């Protein structure tokens, strides 16, 4: 079984140092990049599926600045077979439409049974790219996966899609595109052996020209959206701290809720 994991290096959300550059775009140099959280769950699910099948390969596909191999290396250390990095100076400042087109074109060059992406990324949070790739490539799209169950003999895959009251079981023929959530399970840490082994694994770099795409259809120059301004949110009022006994504390909560007309 061949699985492609779509992975995005994002500014580390735990760094709390993310900022916009003077052009209104995310300043990707401001803080170190990490694998997007939901993509790590997708990768973990892919690795487990390969292990359960006893055979197969996991290819990590990323569209990112040329400095991205570091994060791809971590994915390889976790167990991915190889990496494909789509990188091109023209892609700087890409909107979701461009990202969708580029990843869709790159995915077309790869053979796979299942492609898995995180449902959204912690930097942009739009959560629209996977659905768009599926639409462009004519792939069935199974989203918000909590569990992925391929049936190789039948050539189909089933996904538990999280619903407000439980889950829906979706089924589609493979190849299919799946977006995964944290419910897929905690990602593993790279082992020392994995880290050593990752050094010799292949990371192939692909340019826009390699994909037959030009700057007139994708990239920062044709971005569909633009940030025109930003400001800090209004700071919250000072915290009122209550250290009284439980009954008195409860009374103070009730008073606070009543003051605010919340009860």
């Amino acid at each position, binding site marked *: 079984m061949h699985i492609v994991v779509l992975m995005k290096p994002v500014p580390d*959300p735990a760094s709390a140092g*993310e*900022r*916009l550059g003077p052009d209104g775009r995310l300043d990707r140099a401001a803080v170190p990049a990490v694998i997007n959280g*939901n993509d790590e*769950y997708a990768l973990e699910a892919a690795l487990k599926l390969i292990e359960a099948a006893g055979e197969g390969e996991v290819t990590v596909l990323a569209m990112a600045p040329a400095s991205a191999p570091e994060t791809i290396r971590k994915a390889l250390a976790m167990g991915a077979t190889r990496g494909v990095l789509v990188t091109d100076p023209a892609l700087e400042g890409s*909107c*979701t*439409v461009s990202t*969708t087109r580029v990843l869709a074109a790159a995915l077309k060059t790869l053979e796979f049974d299942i492609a898995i992406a995180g449902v959204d990324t*912690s930097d942009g*949070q*739009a*959560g*629209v790219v*996977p*659905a*768009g790739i*599926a*639409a*462009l490539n*004519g792939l*069935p*799209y199974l989203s*918000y996966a909590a569990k992925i169950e391929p049936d190789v003999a039948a050539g189909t895959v089933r996904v538990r*899609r*999280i*619903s*407000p009251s*439980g889950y*829906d*079981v*979706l*089924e589609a023929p493979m190849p*299919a595109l799946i977006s995964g*959530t*944290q419910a897929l399970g905690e990602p593993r840490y790279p082992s020392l052996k994995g880290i050593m082994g990752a050094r010799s694994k292949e990371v192939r770099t692909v340019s826009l020209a390699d994909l037959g795409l030009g700057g007139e259809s994708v990239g920062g120059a044709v*971005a*569909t*959206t*633009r940030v*025109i301004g*930003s*400001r*800090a*949110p209004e700071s*919250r009022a000072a*915290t*009122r*701290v*209550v*250290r009284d006994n439980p009954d008195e*504390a*409860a*009374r103070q*909560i*009730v008073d*606070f*809720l009543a003051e605010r007309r*919340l009860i």
Partner: protein
Amino acid sequence: MGHILVVGELAPDGSLTKLSTEVATLGRSLAEASGTTVHGVVFATGGASAAATAAMDELLAFVDTASIDERATDGDTVAPVAAAVSTDVADVDVVLLPATPNGRDIAGALSALTGLGVLANATGARWSADGPVVEMSAFGGKLITDSVFTQGRGIITVRPNAVTAAPRATAGTRSETPATSAPTLAPVRVVDRVEEGAAAVSIDDARIIVSGGRGVAGPEGFRLVEDLAAALGGAVGATRAAVDSGWIAYSQQIGQTGKIVKPQLYLALGISGAIQHKVGMQTSGAIVAVNRDADAPIAEFADLFIVGDLFEVGPALLTALRARPD
């Protein structure tokens, strides 16, 4: 100038979601400011059911015109909806959708099919000479940004509680949408729909959320969270630690890899307020926290912080709430 299209989402019981009425209200304010009209659409599987008709009527309280689109197929997921909408956007300037799993899936496919850009998780929008200016929260709430579509038109997904739903003075009018053919997207079959326990109150629509973290210490502890949510008429939320421990379903998770919420009241029980959780709830109207640890990070951004044991304060609060006259 094109009109504004609102895609309404139906709750599991067939009614229009509260978030959809907010999205429709935002759409109407943009239409009024730009001098155009707002059209609402709900999708019915396998023909216009009574539920779809009722949901359309609900939508008509907020928009100028509304219709039922019957091109969604029974058992299938969002693909036919996205395909159907994509054929109808030639004279549409703005498509507004709820920022829910279905809304995001439809927005993504629609954007790819039409080339229209997406501004996601809007917390507000106003009209300008350049089209809609969309307010969004970036970097876990540290920054508020204003963005525009470079072509002046595009797709907007809207977060819960961005606006207060306000009906029109008079109801809008039903309109018939001619069922033009739609491009075919790869079908996905729904094999089964599984309910896990009692259907949880959606945290997307909730005015009040009572949320539990590691300090709740187990599934039994969540009964107290549930009881308080019930007493306050709110929904139950949770941190990743609580979800990972299996105490509550992932659908209720708030934070970086869960949902981002903005209720009028967020009552946090046994939640430390780590950045991964904070980004999901810090724009809530009022934040009340109960935590034994006086140094917990949530002490810095709660409005009211109770230093105490949630298993003592919680029951006392429950008693106090129940003792109040209705």
